């Protein structure tokens, strides 16, 4: 799987973009902890810094969408679209159910950043669904 990824330019771009987004995410998260939590940074710079990890995380759906757009193999494109549909379905279902549960039942509030996290995990579930139903998980997770 990884071997074929390295050969294709669109898959290479996907890996570089994911690595870049994750790097920005980790560095900005560390920056938030250090500057906002540790040193009391406030005001507009704190807002900008606090938004950065979320922006980096929000890049993942965009990066996966670019993979779908740039993929030349129509069958792999079809598999990736199915992955997105599974991930989106799972995330929206979980968010909707949990939202009402925490409203009416004595359940803890889930911070919103968990929903895109679940969406990313949903891509993995989508790949498993593809493997089981179509016999192939595609080439990118």
């Amino acid at each position, binding site marked *: 799987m990884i071997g*074929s990824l390295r050969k294709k330019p669109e898959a290479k771009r996907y890996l570089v973009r994911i690595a870049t987004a994750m790097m920005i995410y980790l560095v900005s998260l560390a920056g938030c902890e250090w500057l906002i939590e540790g040193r009391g940074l406030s005001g507009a710079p704190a807002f900008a810094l606090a938004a950065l990890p979320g922006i980096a995380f929000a890049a993942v759906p965009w990066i996966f969408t670019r993979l779908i757009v740039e993929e*030349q*193999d*129509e*069958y*792999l494109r*079809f598999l990736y679209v199915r992955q997105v549909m599974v991930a989106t379905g799972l995330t929206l279902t979980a968010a909707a159910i949990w939202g009402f549960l925490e409203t009416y039942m004595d359940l803890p509030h889930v911070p919103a950043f968990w929903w895109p996290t679940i969406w990313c995990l949903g891509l993995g579930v989508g790949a498993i669904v593809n493997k089981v139903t*179509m*016999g*192939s998980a*595609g*080439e990118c997770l």
Partner: protein
Amino acid sequence: MPVKNRLRVLRAEREWSQQDLAERLEVSRQSVNAIETGKYDPSLPLAFRIADVFDLAIEEIFLRDAG
């Protein structure tokens, strides 16, 4: 409408592996396997490319599945 195809037979006649055909079509081996097993129906442009590779008309490769 269900569609069946003769891809596996035509490939076997030419002694091509799925990988051989995939390289000729510039698609993944998974694509060839999915089309052969009927899990995926190719787009019209890909169907034309398949027809070109086998030097046949599309309707000689892809058939209505009456059953």
